[in-house]
């Protein structure tokens, strides 16, 4: 028999095992391929949003970290699942290898035969996997583009090639390992089930006796099949870490970013000012989700200024809780280098930063009257602050090395530089903002007055309050707008991006389910003979199903405990530095995690049913 015809015939005669392995590997390859190419395209889409200046640096960071961590986990998951399935299949061949050795076949020839089998399995499954993966990718991008997104459909053939090469290499390394071990082992060892299963007696003594027969049998079975069980746990731990990061991370990041925006814009805020200036402000605020061409305007034009008497009248309206009067203008700001101690030597001083400049929106505010509540790194402006500023995150990232140890010049011609006490996440002008005390701004400008008012109103009396505001502002030829409508657009925009990103966890979950099914199917086909014996001894089909289900449950619970904790750790430690977690999100996250575990457990019912479909006689005669 030629060297290639033996493995082909061998695989063809072991139809079930071969089909299961090819199916499992193909799905694993398809899922990995899909997740990576789809994930990288999502990343490009989000990068485009960020580069186009539509996202602030703080937001882009969260999105990037999310995509980056999910991609790393994806890259890890694919080879781990693939190698696990290959290892499981090849471990089942050890006995055959032992028999061949016993018949006098040389170790080298045995290794070559089985590695050829392995290569055939990997080659066919990779081919099918690529077809499925690319099809899933096209289907998903078409679906998302129809739903209003604009995801590129370009396929990066280089990426596909790299993924396939990595998967093929891993499959060969992990698959060749049991083959090589068995080929080197003595025939008696290779033929022994103890060697094949990694069976241990000592572990069996620790099994809790109060768990009931089926659970005990399942527990015992898993402990005794040491190598397969530990591999399964490693595999599902990684998959569940990925699923937890994507689902929990995605949900919490969505809520956190939404909360940043809500805090930065504020709820129940009415903006009052001249129509031109108000439109300008709303456009600057909406840059986050729609870019519009804007003409140059003179913010300090007398036409735009608001009288003190109107401010007083509006403050007196019942239902107006707070009046935040500001002087707003656009100007070029300049970075001022700072001096810090050398981080290594700690004795000499070094200069940090440069003299970079950028266009920014300057907002003179009265610290105690501010209606917004941004996420601030550092501190807020205080009542007694005179020469301090809080700058937006994009300005901080793009223009400064260490903003809190540097200062900022608002007007180039001025000699004054202001210290930066905090950095805020603000969608206004995409985070290119400077908040400073209004008195200081007056001094710098040599001009006084407000050009925009922010009124925080009581939501319960909204219509009456709005009617009164309209009365007052119309007398001075000014206008007003509710910022809630703008805020809702922001929230929708963020929800849209996250719903796009959340496509990834759905597929990771599918990968987890498919891996579990493949593992159980392969594992059951290896245990069919023993299930047959159990049934011959009086075990009901239900008992066998319970044993299979319990095996899946134990693996899911153990890997779930490690994977979910790991996923939560990664999410909170690396993904979202200052997460916003409401009670509702906690409930949703817990529900999702329970659904995932439940789905995985439920998916094991199918192989459990398959396990009892054979007749007792057929099952016993299964080898």
């Amino acid at each position: 028999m030629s060297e290639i015809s033996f493995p082909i015939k061998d695989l063809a005669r072991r139809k079930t095992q071969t089909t299961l392995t090819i199916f499992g590997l193909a799905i694993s390859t398809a899922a990995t391929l899909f997740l990576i190419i789809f994930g990288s395209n999502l990343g490009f889409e989000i990068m485009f949003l960020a580069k186009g200046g539509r996202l602030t640096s703080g937001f882009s960071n969260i999105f990037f970290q999310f995509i980056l961590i999910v991609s790393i986990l994806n890259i890890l998951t694919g080879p781990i699942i693939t190698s696990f399935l290959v290892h499981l299949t090849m471990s089942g061949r050890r006995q055959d290898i032992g028999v061949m050795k016993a018949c006098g076949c040389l170790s080298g020839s045995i290794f070559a035969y089985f590695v050829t089998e392995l290569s055939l399995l990997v080659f066919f499954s990779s081919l099918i996997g690529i077809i499925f993966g690319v099809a899933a990718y096209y289907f998903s991008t078409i679906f998302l583009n129809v739903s209003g997104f604009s995801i590129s459909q370009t396929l990066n053939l280089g990426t596909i090639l790299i993924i396939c090469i990595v998967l093929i290499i891993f499959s060969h390394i992990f698959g060749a390992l049991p083959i090589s071990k068995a080929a080197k082992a003595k025939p008696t060892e290779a033929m022994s089930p103890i060697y094949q299963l990694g069976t241990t007696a000592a572990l069996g003594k620790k099994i809790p006796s109060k768990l009931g027969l089926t659970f005990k049998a399942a527990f015992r079975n898993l402990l005794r099949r040491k190598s397969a069980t530990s591999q399964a746990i490693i595999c599902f731990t990684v998959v569940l870490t990925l699923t937890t990061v994507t689902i929990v991370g995605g949900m919490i990041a969505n809520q956190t970013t939404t909360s940043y925006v809500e805090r930065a814009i504020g709820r129940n805020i009415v903006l009052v000012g001249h129509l031109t200036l108000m439109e300008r402000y709303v456009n600057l605020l909406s840059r986050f989700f729609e870019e519009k061409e804007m003409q140059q305007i003179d913010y300090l034009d007398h036409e735009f200024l608001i009288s003190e008497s109107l401010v007083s009248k509006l403050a007196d309206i019942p239902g107006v809780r707070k009046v935040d009067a500001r002087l707003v203008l656009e100007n070029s700001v300049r970075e001022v280098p700072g001096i810090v101690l050398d981080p290594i030597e700690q004795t000499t001083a070094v200069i940090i930063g440069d003299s970079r400049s950028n266009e920014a929106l300057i907002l003179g505010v009265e610290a105690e009257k501010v209606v917004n509540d941004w996420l601030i790194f550092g501190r807020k402006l205080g009542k007694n602050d005179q020469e301090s500023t809080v700058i937006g995150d994009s300005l901080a990232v793009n223009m400064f090395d260490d903003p809190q140890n540097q200062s900022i010049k608002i007007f180039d011609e001025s000699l004054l530089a202001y210290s930066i006490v905090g950095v805020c996440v603000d969608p206004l002008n995409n985070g290119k903002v400077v908040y400073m005390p209004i008195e200081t701004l007056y001094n710098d400008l040599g001009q006084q007055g407000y050009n925009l008012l922010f009124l925080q109103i009581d939501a319960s009396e909204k219509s009456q309050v709005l009617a009164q505001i309209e009365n007052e502002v119309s007398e001075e030829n000014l206008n007003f707008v509710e910022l809630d409508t703008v805020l809702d657009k922001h929230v929708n925009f963020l929800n849209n991006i996250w719903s796009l990103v959340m496509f990834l966890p759905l597929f990771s979950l599918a990968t987890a389910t498919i891996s579990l099914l493949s593992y159980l199917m392969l594992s059951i086909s290896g245990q069919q003979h023993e299930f047959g014996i159990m049934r011959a001894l009086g075990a009901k089909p239900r008992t066998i199903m319970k044993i299979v289900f319990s095996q899946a449950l134990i693996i899911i619970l153990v890997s779930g405990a490690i994977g979910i904790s790991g996923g939560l750790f990664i999410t909170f430690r690396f993904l979202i530095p200052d997460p916003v977690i409401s009670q509702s999100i906690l409930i949703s996250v817990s529900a999702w995690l329970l659904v995932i575990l439940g789905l995985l457990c439920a998916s094991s019912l199918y192989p459990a049913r398959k396990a009892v479909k054979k007749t007792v006689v057929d099952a016993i005669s299964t080898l």
Partner: protein
Amino acid sequence: MKEKVIVASDLCRQFEIDDVIVDAINNINLTVEEGEFISIYGVSGAGKTTLLNLIGALDKPTSGKIVVFNHDLGTYDENFLATFRSAYIGFVFQSYNLISTLTAVENIAFVIELAGWSKERIKNRSETLLKLVGLEHRGNHFPAQLSGGERQRVAFARALANDPPLLLADEPTGNLDMETGVEIVSILEKIKEKGKTVILATHDEKLLKLASRSLFLKDGRLTDR
């Protein structure tokens, strides 16, 4: 008058292998009474295993009837048959069929765990049976760590675990050498003394001596020798 334990009438079992119909059991009529020790003799492929599978409720007849302990086995579903096997039948297979991931003592205990015995009773019973088959020192060993004869002795202990009224032994010495075969014969003698109904399929003429009645099977039919 002794109770009829097994009544087979016009019992047939056919298998379809690659469009070829094979008659494994062909029109068998058989009655076995309580306490009888029956040996079924036949060459390999005569249908002994198929007949034992039908009597032991592992398989269903293609036609005819098999009534064991007043239960028409062809009419029940798999759940009932599992309970039936657990309560009435002890099986010894030619290839031992021990569960490879369970130790010797756990293989024996598994049957009575299924029957819902208490922990203490399971322990006592398993140890008693290991002693009966002379393997009290090998209880914590896995099947792969036992010799063929030892495995078969564990299989006998397991078959007797829940004290079944009917023991079916399919070529119990088929895979063993002569010396080990003698050990099995001694176990069978002990079982015979206890008055259990035993059906023993064999092509080992020495085992025929143990039987109170011997039946001869050829091409799926019971024949005179």
